[in-house]
């Protein structure tokens, strides 16, 4: 059941990305080009998503358990640290260079073409590099302790 609701949520999320225009990198870059011929459409995507989210999230996060009986797994970090800001900046630069963020990159895979695939592989490689850094760091910390 958990798998079934996951696939449905992913599907609905992806359909929303396609309908909204987020899966078209040219449209994303048109939104990010404030000084050029600006296409404000994608502000409506974030706006619409956050309106629905804001209606449901405040109640959902107070639930002791999910509807399917699992623990509610919410982020616990609250600190605005260097990692958060530097990571966000790096992500934003990559987003501005190609017009893909992770969701649209996945949605674009089945739409075909070598470009989305190449971006996806590079993104996965980047995530893998992060894991390796983290493991190396954890090892160094435990070795010095």
């Amino acid at each position: 059941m958990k798998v079934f609701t996951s696939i449905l949520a992913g599907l609905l999320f992806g359909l929303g990305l396609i309908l909204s225009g987020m899966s078209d990198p040219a449209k994303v870059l048109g939104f990010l080009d404030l000084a050029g011929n600006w296409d404000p459409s994608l502000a409506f995507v974030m706006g619409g998503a956050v309106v629905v989210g804001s209606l449901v999230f405040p109640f959902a996060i107070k639930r002791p358990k999910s509807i399917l009986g699992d623990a509610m797994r919410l982020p616990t970090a609250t600190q605005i640290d260097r990692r958060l800001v530097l990571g966000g900046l790096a992500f934003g630069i990559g987003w501005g260079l190609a017009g893909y963020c992770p969701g649209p990159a996945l949605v674009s895979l089945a739409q075909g073409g070598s470009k989305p695939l190449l971006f996806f592989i590079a993104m996965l490689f980047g995530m893998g590099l992060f894991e390796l850094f983290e493991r190396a760091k954890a090892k160094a910390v435990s070795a010095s302790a």
Partner: protein
Amino acid sequence: MTIDWNNFTPWTSLAGGLMIGLAAALFLLFNGRIAGISGIMGGLLKPAQGDISWRIAFLAGLVLSPLVYALVSSLPQVQVEASYPMLIVAGLLVGIGTRYGSGCTSGHGVCGLSRRSPRSMAATVAFMFAGFVTVYIVNHLIG
């Protein structure tokens, strides 16, 4: 600044946004999880028992969505302007940046803002700012 009225699609963008918000809301209600795509992907790179199938299912839903969309309507045209080397650099930055910053447009943007997390607001400001500046440099200073 001029507005690109020809490409302006407020209604379909709003409708898509509502669907994204609904997907994130249902996922939190039913699965108790944040629909943060970089986090869901990243979790597969350090697999833990019992924590794999739902991640693959969610990502499979995303990957299959264009096939389902095509059953109902024709898929919108997409255009990738970035060159191959640029796509590699961009992909690496998005991969490392989203994991290092613990989230992307979905986890920090949609879900974080919906639960009024100051941390996610800061991250969203950071990546939006970097996106605007990057496109400004590429289109108006270099291009």
